[in-house]
């Protein structure tokens, strides 16, 4: 069937381009059943069929194709309003009503529940605690809880990042009362059953080891470890290391939960088919009895490594077809006043498909399926990095090219068109942040986690619009010029070591896929 199809269309198209094309020349067979109109029948109406190679009658369209059409009037958009109150135990609540679908999303953000608070050498504890909270809880076994949530058409899950832990609920508003009860159990009354603990811990250790298989995961681990130090906050992986997770005990999790998962300091975001006024007593009834605790005495300070290794090489496998590459450095916290200029600059540099990095490395050079850069804004510090997977034999030229592209925004201000496009994308794309309940909740959570004012979004558009090319240039000179980037390469390092060292980046180190130092190169 496919061969016949080829013959048919090849015959029809023979008039277009018979000749050395690499395709098989085939015998002509009759063209498709319907024939084009006779040549002297006058111009065809659009409904009339014309031949496969008849030219397109652009001139009949009535469109001025010489330029894209102008937009119609700019619509106005305001982020949905939030209502705020507090429960008797200090738990803050932010509610965004949205009655368009019978869905509710809850996110409880706990600033003391993140990997930042992992005790020394017990890396992965915050994440493990989160993992176990949604197992057995409130008198139900893990299996009973799972079944119950499925019947309700809802899901509850708890996770941890570096800066905070978050408990989530998502489901139908029709069964909200029942699923909220489970959510309260998970947050307040997790059972931390030994068999659950053993199973989850074992699977977590396995999954950490499996990260070795994934070059980008290895690169990310090495990047953060190099910038912050293997035994420093932000420097160990959120999920921990196989060796540190293996040492965790059930009581570690119990203690972490008791000390770190408390209502005071936390904020609950509710978005969806709810009414803030009727919700308040409902939340008080289910979460009001959650006892206050003492917040951790000290917030661990983030202290990046003063002179990190400049080149970090990790051998993934012989003949790896690509190298996973990170290039970057320590950068801004989210509440930094330079956030706006950082976003404008990064959008042009590597934040979109048409950005300098992607356009050059992918579209012009074909070195990669995608290249980009981003600021990752933490609570105290953040990072900035370029990320790309380069085809193996373009690893060196790709890295050089990436560094040159970054230099280009340091050496000269953005031209008007790039600046305008960058600002326009951020401003006009802004409403899309608020499309789903989870998106809206996350948007508001971001403000709370980073201590930004409640009305931060009201001024976002204006602040972005005020960023000038000079602002962006000054920022680039400050942030991206020092030539102190860390370059991480995960690929066939055995074959490429000499060439990588020739880049001249020092200190240069070699790690195994778990992050253990194998060699240092002078």
């Amino acid at each position, binding site marked *: *069937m*496919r*061969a016949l199809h*080829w013959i048919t*269309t090849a015959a029809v*198209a023979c008039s277009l*381009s018979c000749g050395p*094309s*690499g*395709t*098989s020349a085939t015998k002509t067979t009759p063209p*498709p059943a319907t024939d084009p109109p006779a040549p002297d029948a006058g111009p065809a*109406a*659009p*409904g009339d*069929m*014309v*031949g*496969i190679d008849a030219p*397109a009658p*652009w001139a*009949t*369209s*009535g*469109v001025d*194709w010489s330029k894209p*059409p102008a*937009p119609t009037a*700019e*619509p106005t958009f305001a982020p949905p309003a939030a209502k705020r109150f507090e429960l008797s135990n200090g738990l803050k609540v932010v509610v965004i009503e949205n009655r368009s*679908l*019978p*869905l509710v999303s809850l996110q409880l953000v706990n600033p003391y529940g993140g990997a930042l608070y992992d005790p020394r050498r017990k890396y992965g504890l915050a994440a493990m605690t989160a993992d176990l909270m949604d197992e057995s809880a409130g008198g139900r076994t893990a*299996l009973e809880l*799972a079944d119950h949530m*499925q019947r*309700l*058409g809802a899901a509850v899950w708890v996770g941890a990042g570096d800066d905070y832990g978050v408990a989530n609920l998502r489901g*139908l508003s*029709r069964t909200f009362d029942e699923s909220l009860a489970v959510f309260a159990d998970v947050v307040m009354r997790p059972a931390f059953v030994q068999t659950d603990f053993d199973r989850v811990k074992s*699977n977590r250790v*396995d999954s950490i080891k499996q990260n070795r*298989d994934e070059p980008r995961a290895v690169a990310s681990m090495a990047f953060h470890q190099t910038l912050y130090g293997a035994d420093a906050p932000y420097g160990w992986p959120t999920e921990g290391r196989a060796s540190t997770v293996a040492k965790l005990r059930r009581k570690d999790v119990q203690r972490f939960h008791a000390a770190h998962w408390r209502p005071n300091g936390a904020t609950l975001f509710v978005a969806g088919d709810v009414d803030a006024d009727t919700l308040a007593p409902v939340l008080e009834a289910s979460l009001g009895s959650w006892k206050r605790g003492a917040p951790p005495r000290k917030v661990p300070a983030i202290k990046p490594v003063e002179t990190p290794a400049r080149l970090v090489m990790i051998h993934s496998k012989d003949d790896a*077809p*690509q190298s996973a590459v990170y290039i970057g450095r320590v950068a801004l916290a989210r509440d930094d006043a330079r956030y706006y200029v950082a976003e404008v600059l990064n959008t042009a540099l590597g934040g979109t*498909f*048409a950005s300098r990095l992607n356009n050059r490395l*992918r*579209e012009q050079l*074909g070195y*990669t*399926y*995608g290249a980009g850069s981003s600021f990752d804004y933490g609570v105290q510090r953040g990072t900035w990095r370029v990320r790309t*997977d380069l085809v193996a034999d373009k690893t060196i030229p790709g890295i050089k090219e990436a560094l040159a592209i970054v230099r280009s925004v340091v050496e000269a201000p953005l031209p008007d068109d790039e600046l*305008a496009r960058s600002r*326009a994308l951020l401003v*006009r*794309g*802004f409403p899309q942040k608020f*499309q789903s309940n989870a998106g809206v909740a996350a948007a508001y959570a971001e403000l709370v986690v980073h201590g930004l004012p409640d009305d931060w979004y009201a001024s976002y558009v204006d602040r972005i619009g005020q960023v000038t090319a000079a602002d962006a240039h000054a920022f680039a000179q400050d942030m991206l010029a020092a030539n102190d980037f860390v370059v991480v390469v995960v690929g066939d390092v055995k074959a490429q070591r000499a060439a990588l060292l020739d880049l001249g980046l020092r200190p240069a180190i070699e790690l195994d896929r778990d992050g253990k130092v194998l060699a240092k190169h002078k």
Partner: protein
Amino acid sequence: MIQRARFLSLGLAALVAVAASSSLDAQPTDGVGLTATKFELDNGLEVIVHEDHSQPTVMVHVWYHVGSKDEVEGRSGFAHLFEHLMFKGSKHVPDGDFDRLLEAAGGWNNGTTNEDRTNYFEQLPSNYLGLALYLEADRMAGLWDAMNQDVLDNQRDVVKNERRQSYENAPYGMAELAIQQALWPKGHGNHGLTIGTMEDLTAASLADVELFYRTYYVPNNATLVIAGDVDVDTVKKAVQLYFGWMPRRPEPSHVTLTAPVRPRSEETRMVLEDDVEVPQVFVTWRAPQAFGADGAELDIAAQVLASGKTSRLEKRLVFDERIASSVGAYQYPMMLGSMFQVTVMAKPGVEPDQLFMAVDEELARLAKEPPTDDEVLRARNTREARFVMGLESLAGRAGLLARYNAYLGDPNYFAKDLARYTAVTPKRVSEAVARWLKPDARVVTYVVPAKKGAK
């Protein structure tokens, strides 16, 4: 896995949305639905419009009814490679401007190709609808005017990198290729992967591009879906302006299902080595074509088998026996026949045979004894909730409308799709499993760690 995105950040999760059942009974949720207006231009271009004024944005989809199933021998990967070329400029739009113009408008865009169709989409503020239509029309009618060898060569390299990143350099990645080659015979539209082979990508020529373009990228082989802050009358006028002038072209032939999908008649076993820490077991069968009879039953079967802690395989292998770290089961629907797959990731030190035996036993049990009412209820309720969630985003809705239209000819299929699942009973699940997921019809694949030093 199957949808090849032009840029990896995006892909539509084409969840079928549902007018949800309530928790413990089976009444549909009031007021949840998905409907659109459909019309056709004189030149055969189908247009579907869904109004939603909750946000000042609009989503525009163009679905061309050609996919990797329609590729010819020696040109695997071509439909997807062609998709890449569509972003490289057209008659009035210089290379690079497509993305720049959309980004300047505050929009994002992407495209995906799979076995059945090629799909282009953008989301942008609703006052820029004209821009989206202008760009789509210009590349529909004027792509070839901007095409040249350099563009083809460059995107060929990009696609090869995509293949490396998604398959060759991804753990367990090459198993997918082997499975899709074994599941369907050579010459069948689903044989192999949409990404294609390196050899065939290398062989693709400019002449191929022109032929493919003139054959398939014509208004009467395309469907436009416009969803968001628009009104039907304005859209009608705008679409007529930008697309109405294009002439109808000869109907391209499509590879279609000409005989009922049949399970394979033999079992195949494969062992592949890869640079991985632990083995993974894949058991794969053919399944009925998308939306075909038994399809909903098999979706529910997949959930009974591997969705959630109390599912058959997860409870047994992850929870009780603790010989697996994760399990999965899903049905991937296609026009020429779907794929049903069970996967099990081993814990270290566990032999794949042990995992496979458990899968074999659980499938045999499910084929013989219907699941419980509670298992089916939970699966239905979970699925139905996901349906409602799928309606939250414009992207989700537009994708659904386009999908219903492409597979069934009716964008307003939502309620009927829900009804497919409401009608599922335990007995029908069992019967579907017995009919399709037979031992002598499966492809069994073990991916095991490569022996050290053997690389």
